[in-house]
């Protein structure tokens, strides 16, 4: 079983979020990390590959990342967790790419790889668009099975469970397929020290747009179908309203909640 996991390098949510002059997220000079939501996809891939390998089937996990130079950190983290190899698409022309361009690049990279299963997270923690998995499946002509809370495989099909508010859907698709997983699916492992040391020796293949046969005109900010017009910091939080209980505290709380249309 050959699994490819698409991972994104995102600015650390703990740090200050900054934007560049063209209103795109500042990715240079800020601490970045493997998007937390992608850790679930990496974990799921490793769990599947380990189970398959244990039953004698040769299995590999490759992580695929598009991003600036520093994004190798995300690839490295996945390798430390246990993935076998990394592919990093890195090109100056990619800066400012929207979801359409991103899916185009990832699709082109996936065409250079062998895979039975493509796994992704449910969204990136910085963009939160959640559309790349669907676009990617469309471009590659793969069945897309999104928001999986559980993944099961036999040799030829993948079966997932998707938890909704009132029901759990069970969805099946033939392989190869693309599956996005939620943050409910597993508990991502930490890299062990042995994993950290082993990752130093694992291969990371860096590809440019030219390597993928893509033109700079197809990607980047200038080719984006959507443009961020303006960004503004959220106004500082207003001071709360204090209700002192003078015998009518309960009533006043309910009045407040009703006023805010919460009850």
């Amino acid at each position, binding site marked *: 079983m050959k699994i490819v996991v698409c991972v994104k390098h995102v600015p650390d949510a703990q740090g200050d979020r900054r934007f560049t002059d063209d209103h795109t997220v500042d990715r240079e*000079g*800020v601490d970045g990390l493997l998007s937390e939501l992608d850790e679930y996809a990496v974990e799921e891939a490793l769990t599947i590959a380990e189970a398959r390998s244990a039953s004698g089937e040769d299995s590999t996990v490759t992580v695929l990342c598009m991003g600036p130079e520093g994004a190798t*950190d995300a690839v*490295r*983290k996945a390798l*430390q967790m246990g993935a076998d190899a990394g592919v990093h698409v890195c090109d100056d022309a990619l800066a400012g790419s929207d979801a359409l361009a991103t899916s185009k690049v990832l699709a082109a990279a996936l065409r250079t790889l062998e895979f039975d299963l493509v796994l992704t997270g449910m969204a990136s923690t910085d963009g939160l668009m959640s559309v790349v998995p669907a676009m990617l499946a469309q471009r590659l002509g793969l069945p897309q099975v999104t928001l999986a809370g559980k993944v099961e495989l036999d040799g030829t099909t993948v079966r997932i469970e998707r938890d909704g508010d009132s029901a759990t859907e069970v969805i099946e698709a033939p392989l190869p397929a693309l599956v996005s997983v939620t943050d409910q699916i597993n508990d991502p492992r*930490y*890299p*062990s*020290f*042995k994993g*950290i*040391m082993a990752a*130093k020796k694992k291969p990371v293949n860096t590809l440019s747009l030219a390597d993928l046969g893509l033109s700079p005109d197809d990607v980047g900010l200038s080719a984006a179908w959507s443009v961020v017009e303006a960004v503004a910091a959220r106004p500082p939080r207003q001071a709360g309203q204090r209700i002192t209980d003078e015998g009518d505290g309960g009533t006043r709380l309910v009045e407040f909640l009703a006023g805010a249309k919460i009850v």
Partner: protein
Amino acid sequence: MKTTSSRTTNPQDLADLDSLLTAEEKAVREAVRQVCDDAVEPSIAQWYESGELPAARELAREFGKVGLLGMHLEGYGCAGMSAVDYGLACLELEASDSGIRSLVSVQGSLAMFAIWRWGSEEQKTEWLPQLATGEAIGCFGLTEPDFGSDPGSMRTTARRDGGDWVLDGAKMWITNGSIADVAVVWANAGEENGGIRGFVVPTSVPGFSAPKIKHKMSLRASITSELVLEGVRLPGSAILPEVRGLKGPLSCLNEARYGIVWGALGAGRSAFEAARRYSMEREQFGRPIAGFQLTQAKLANMAVELINGQLLALHLGRRKDEVGLRPDQVSLGKYNNVTKALEICRTARTILGANGISGEFPVMRHANNLESVLTYEGTVEMHTLMIGQALTGIPAYR
């Protein structure tokens, strides 16, 4: 020379010391931080308050999974990491609690190191792999009720009886004692047998018991015990064959002390961070107390001492990886970093006012813990005298 400056100010790393670490070293630190955040932080205040460590075995297994136990040793299931990696791990562990770091130090640097460095092949293959995974827990018995700083005068004896050894005596203040599966016990075997010798004692043997020491006001989230040895009969193969004399236990202590050089800064960092945050939120006289010059002076001093301590720790770590350290160099590190960390905790406590003495904040816990750290692994006075001896050539302690 660059005339520009790095763009961001990080209050946790004002001097950009992170630039001195490799990507792998940062990954090691991050892995330990994660396991502590998940397995230690949610419960540590409760464990400390109740004076118990009910999860000791689970913790050991979690730590084993990451590779923390005996991480700087090679082979036998150990991760074979560098001294700097080990130091960074100790710092993160102790940022959660000195007691948790003690569990790991004693396991890896005292019990495992003793067997790894001075044990027979048979002892190594029997014990090291299970100590590395955390399946088994180890302790290290040197201190006695009547002998602490002067372990050479110990009363515990090992007597030859046919092919066997028979151990009698008592050890005191032994970390992990009551839960250990194996104890490395140091005993006087008599001049004819090389003086002080180490023994690998499975704690299930008849005559061995390890009652817990109660009423500790420090290091409460750590198990501390007495070891009672009453005619403990061991096969001849239980002795550590490769070392004779005090050099045996002291070599192990040097390893653990090196970890403390880093670890203590973790406790200091946590207290500093709690105080810094608190000072910006707490308002008196209509403004955050962080705005008062006295508070800023405290914060600045704490930050500078933490940076100095880290530079010293990192320097010693790089030296240890490259050429090894002399004991007086380890003394230098432990002396400075533990005393400074303790001062930082005490200063942090004042910034929190009354909240500083509350278990709702970690500050008093760290301060109290460091009282133990100041004493164990060589008291601050003994380390002062080690430095004094290195400077003057005169041993003032005897």
